[in-house]
């Protein structure tokens, strides 16, 4: 205040000289102070809902119960199969602060290990409070998950007892263990009725044993040699058939060629017999072999013909000599021995003509 007054005086304007009385400031300050005290004291006061136990360091399984209590458990049945139901009745007996009596919402009775062993279902409609006997009854349905479960144990009640003189006032009490026998479920898969309707009807049919055991034929295979034979056979067969056809069914030209080629042999065969005329045989030979057209040729005509065909002059002269001898024999009768000589000479002439290259031309 000592400093306020001079400052106010120094900086206040002349028209603000009318200020409230000093007592007003004192009353205002007192009121504000009271209001602050009341507010802080009001918030600092404990509410009736404050727990009577320490909030920190309380056990995990604390069931929010204050007083003195005991716990009992019964189960029925105790001989069952996997996943069959057990009715578990838990009685909590005792008394304590009314607002901290046993309440299903806060109960932590079962250990975490039960998750592997039981399916647990709370049966709220069967819970019961028997006030006159100070008993709270909680009912659960348990279903064992496997056959290794042989007892219901570790059911515990953790509560707070303020009357205990110990430092640790949280009390844990266990229900006595209940022995159970869990048997495996009977295999009822045979009785499950789910139709196999997804597959068409043709899947439900089977082929009989006769066809099943029928061995399928060996896969078709051809070796390289067989393949070559098969490829080569048709052309060769066709070639042979062409040759055979032409051999056994020759055409006119072929027949003429064959006839011409065989004329020498034919003539030589005829000359072997003595009853033929050498001149006639040679004449027919010349006609068949070389198309010599004259029916009754003179030696000069034959010699000239052969010369035109290109035969050797000696052969031409030999034929002239032979035919002159034939003419002599034809027109002047001679002895038989001379005829034989003519036949031999005729055969020699034919052989010589055949030997000449011009005969093949």
């Amino acid at each position, binding site marked *: 205040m000592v400093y306020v007054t001079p400052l106010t005086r120094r900086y206040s304007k002349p028209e603000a000289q009318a200020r409230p009385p000093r007592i007003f400031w004192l009353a205002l300050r007192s009121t504000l102070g009271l209001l602050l005290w009341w507010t802080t004291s009001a918030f600092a006061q404990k509410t009736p809902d404050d727990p009577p136990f320490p909030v920190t360091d309380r056990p995990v399984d604390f069931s929010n119960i204050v007083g003195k209590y005991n716990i009992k458990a019964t189960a029925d049945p105790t001989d069952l199969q996997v996943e069959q139901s057990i009715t578990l009745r838990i009685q909590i007996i005792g008394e304590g602060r009314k607002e901290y009596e046993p309440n299903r919402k806060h109960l932590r009775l079962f250990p975490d290990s039960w998750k592997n062993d039981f399916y647990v279902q709370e049966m709220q409609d069967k819970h019961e409070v028997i006030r006159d006997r100070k008993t709270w009854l909680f009912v659960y349905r348990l279903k064992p998950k496997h056959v290794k479960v042989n007892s219901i144990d570790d059911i515990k009640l953790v509560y707070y007892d303020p009357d205990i003189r110990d430092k640790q006032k949280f009390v844990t009490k266990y229900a006595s263990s209940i022995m159970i026998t869990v048997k495996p479920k009977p295999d009822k*898969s*045979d*009785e*499950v*009725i*789910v*139709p*196999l309707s997804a*597959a*068409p009807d*043709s*899947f*439900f*049919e*089977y*082929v*009989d*044993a006769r*066809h*099943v*055991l*029928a*061995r*399928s034929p060996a*896969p*078709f295979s*051809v070796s390289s040699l067989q393949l070559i034979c*098969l*490829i080569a*056979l*048709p*052309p060769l*067969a*066709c070639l042979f*058939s*062409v040759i055979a*056809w032409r051999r056994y069914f020759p055409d006119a030209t072929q027949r003429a060629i064959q006839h011409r080629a065989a004329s020498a042999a034919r003539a030589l065969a005829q000359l072997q017999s003595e009853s033929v005329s050498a001149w006639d045989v040679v004449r027919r030979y010349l006609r068949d072999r070389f198309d010599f057209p004259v029916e009754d040729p003179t030696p000069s005509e034959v010699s000239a013909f052969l010369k035109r065909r290109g035969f050797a002059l000696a052969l031409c002269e030999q034929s002239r000599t032979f035919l002159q001898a034939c003419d002599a024999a034809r027109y002047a009768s001679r002895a038989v021995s001379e005829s034989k000589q003519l036949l031999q000479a005729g055969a020699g002439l034919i052989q010589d003509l055949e030997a000449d290259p011009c005969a093949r031309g």
Partner: protein
Amino acid sequence: MRAGMISSLLVVTFLPTLALASTSTDEEIVAQAEDAFRQGVDNKIRILQARKHFSKATDAYRELHRRGVRSPALLLNLGNAAVLADRWPEAIWAYHSGLRLDPNDRILREHLEFARAKVLYPLAGQGRPDADAWPDWLHRPTIGELSCALGLSYLLAWLAGTCAFFSRQSRLFLLASGLVLVTAIAGAGLWNELRQTEIDRRTPLVVLAGNTEFYRGNGLSYPQHPVLPVLPRGLEARQLHRRGAWLQIRLTTGEVGWVPGTQVLVVEP
């Protein structure tokens, strides 16, 4: 000690098969298979019981196949039993094997499509088999049929050509030309079939028996395929190589990787 354990494990694994093999003839095994199949059909409204019977029938038919029995009827029965036993990878394998013996068996082909429909292919469609371009109504010639057609048309073409050469008739020339054309078509078909057979021999078709991890190399230490770490059961692929107990396979869409040999069923070429 270890060898003893392995031998005992083998005995336990193959005991049912050994029992079947040692005591029964083929006819008896067929009878057992048919009996199990009938029981499966009788109980087909009870799925679990029916599957047991069909599985038993599948085992019996597979034993016959192991003994060397090869017939389309056996493989059809095997496939049907395997489908109904929920062992459809084996069914796909059996139907493929049956179609190798008789490519014109329509029931085998229809049942193969049904079994393929059960495969859970990746969403992107990797490994999905290509559609069959051959028309259903058209006969699929076998190698034997193509060989016979080729040989016959070749022979007749030569004969017709020879006759045409002799007779100089235009009809025979036309006939010879037609036969040459038939020969060419049959030859092309036979070449294609032989090529396909060679492909099947070099890279046999394999069917995955179970969901199988797909590795980049032939060992568990290799990383799995980045796109397809696991292949679904029933997937069809081609075997490229075999190294030890591992198979290198190629999917129909080109992905290449390795799978354990125990996880695949190889279709005989």
